[in-house]
């Protein structure tokens, strides 16, 4: 009897596994006249909001392009990496097997560093919408960023604070186990102190989003910090804001692009995020006509207000499409041939104006040149400052 039980259990377990595996596959169709663009991002896991947004944004751009009777179609193939470097390389290899020609990815920095190195080795052209770490593009002549690099985010925040909040007593809480977070922090620190200003308290935590932050927050409070810079993702940030509120500590928070997504967090009391400032190249509430058009189309397609990552990915697909068209490569070429043509175009006089910036230009290192924007959260919305 017991043996039978085990068999039933095993059989049902393997059924679940099989279903889960089948779910990951995702069909790919090809009509022979399309550019196969791979997308990698965390579709599940703690950073899933980013990956979903990137996938949806890229798909929306591809759908628009394909509906306009172009010379060639764009086919999006998306893979999940759970914001994990190893899984990301697996996702990348899977996309290679499926015939990916250009990569729009990865979404986050740590996986991007691993995949960037692979893409460099394999000669696959990559444009990342949001992996902002310098290591993603470092030494890789064929990997480009559409977003600001981390150091530039740190510099931009320091500049903005010095100009608009010259008297603020600034403190920092960052994740010392994450190179995205510590990268921004390092650059912020050197820029801020280079202006002759002081950071009143610096505290760290390591990855565990659900930790007790009272010690860090007490340190901020005791140092009289009234502006807390949080170069971290939104999940620990939500925890920090909740705990600070319980301690009667109400500073102004300043976030970077990782903060984008906090309002979409299920169960989060958005009142706690009122007045949060964040550096983001895109806001869904901008008056700008192209932005409005994009937001409407996105809401219609996915029933959700797009965050910055969706706009980044949307721009990425258009930038790749325009550059590919200009480069003179053909969709029948292999990834390596396309790669060389694209590098030449991107580092040449190619510019692109989209949702996340006007006249974006790229240098040979792979960094983008555009102007940063700062938003404030008011009444549960991002408002451009």
């Amino acid at each position, binding site marked *: 009897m017991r043996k039978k039980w085990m068999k039933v259990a095993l059989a049902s377990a393997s059924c679940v596994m099989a279903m889960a595996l089948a779910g990951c596959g995702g069909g790919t169709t090809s009509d022979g006249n399309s550019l196969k663009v791979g997308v990698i991002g965390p579709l*599940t896991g703690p950073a*899933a909001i980013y990956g979903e947004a990137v996938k949806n944004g890229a798909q929306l751009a591809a759908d628009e392009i394909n509906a306009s009777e172009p010379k060639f179609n764009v086919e999006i193939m998306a893979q999940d990496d*759970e914001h994990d470097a190893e899984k990301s390389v697996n996702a990348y290899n899977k996309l290679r097997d499926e015939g990916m020609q250009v990569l729009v990815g990865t979404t986050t920095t740590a996986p991007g560093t691993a995949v960037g190195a692979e893409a460099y080795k394999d000669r696959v052209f990559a444009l990342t919408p949001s992996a902002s770490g310098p290591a993603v593009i470092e030494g890789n002549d064929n990997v480009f960023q559409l977003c600001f690099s981390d150091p530039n985010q740190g510099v931009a925040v320091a500049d903005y604070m010095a100009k608009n909040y010259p008297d603020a007593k600034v403190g920092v809480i960052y994740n010392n186990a994450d190179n995205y977070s510590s990268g921004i922090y390092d650059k912020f620190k050197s820029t801020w102190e280079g202006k002759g200003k002081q950071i009143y308290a610096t505290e760290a935590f390591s990855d565990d989003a659900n930790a007790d932050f*009272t010690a860090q927050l*007490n340190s901020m409070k005791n140092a009289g910090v009234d502006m807390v810079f949080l170069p971290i993702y939104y999940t620990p940030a939500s925890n920090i804001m909740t705990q600070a509120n319980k301690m009667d500590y109400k500073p102004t928070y300043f976030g970077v692009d990782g903060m984008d997504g906090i309002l979409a967090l299920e*169960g989060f009391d958005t009142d706690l995020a009122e007045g949060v400032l964040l550096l983001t190249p895109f806001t869904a509430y901008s008056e700008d006509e192209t932005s409005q058009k994009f937001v409407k189309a996105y809401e219609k397609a996915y029933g959700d207000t797009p965050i910055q990552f969706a706009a980044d990915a949307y721009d990425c697909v258009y930038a790749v499409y325009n550059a590919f068209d200009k480069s003179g490569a053909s969709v029948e070429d292999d990834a390596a041939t396309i790669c060389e043509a694209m590098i030449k175009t991107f580092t040449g006089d190619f510019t692109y104006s989209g949702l996340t910036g006007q006249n974006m230009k790229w240098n040979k290192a792979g960094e983008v040149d555009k102007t940063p924007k700062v938003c404030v959260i008011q009444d549960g919305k991002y408002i451009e400052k």
Partner: protein
Amino acid sequence: MNMINSLISGLSLGSVYSIIALGYTMVYGISKMLNFAHGDIIMVGSYISFCLTTYVGMPGWAALIGAVAVCTVLGIVIERLAYRPLRGTGSLSVLITAIGVSYFLQNMALLVWGANPRVFKSLFKGLEPIRLAEGQIIITAESFFTIIVCVVIMVGLTLFVHKSKAGKAMRAVSEDNGAAQLMGINVNQSISLTFAIGSGLAAVAGVLMCSAYPVLMPTTGAMPGIKAFTAAVLGGIGSIPGAMVGGLILGTIEIFSRAYISTELSDAIVFACLVIVLLVKPTGLFGKKISEKV
């Protein structure tokens, strides 16, 4: 003042560890196995409570009772399906099975609830914190009730184990399984009861923990699970007061090392304390040295 604030957060965090550690220590005491799936039962309990409040609209206390009920049943089912068939096959296979159950629970949670983090609504939402010394000392409702609940559980459990018939049976089984059976004690029932109590407590710990630190993910139980296991070992695994004291010490050390030494090194310090205690007193603070019969 800071010292007192830190002490309060330390005791509150430590209370959560204590309640979780109780589950580890009781199960170890009675069946000599390390139930590494215990941390994930915390996570399941928190999710059940989250779903009952958010989707069903139950009040917090009713959701807590629901979570305890589900976790109690889950604990019994896990023991019945995964551990009982392996009883008597050596500790290694049970240990590996426990790790397997842990992964199974995490991945089931991924399938059922998805991986997007949720923000847990505090059980004590709307209760004003207690402010002492002109607002310099703040005791949040979460800290206050966590400590109270921990003390109540501790007293209740000690009374149960020492005074009730079922508790006496549990102690007898943990002392000598075979002899207990010969005396007419239903060993299976005692072990099931232990798993039921441990898992029910895990649900309480989960809800209390997520009320204070509100991010809920399928891996939420992992780190507190390991810390509580450390607490159980520190206090002497198998000992109920040991779990309590171990948890409180660990929580306090963690918060104090964050506040006064380094936020980056706090986890290292916590685990270094474990190593030191084990070097000085290998059975833990309250552990009894039992010589193995040959």
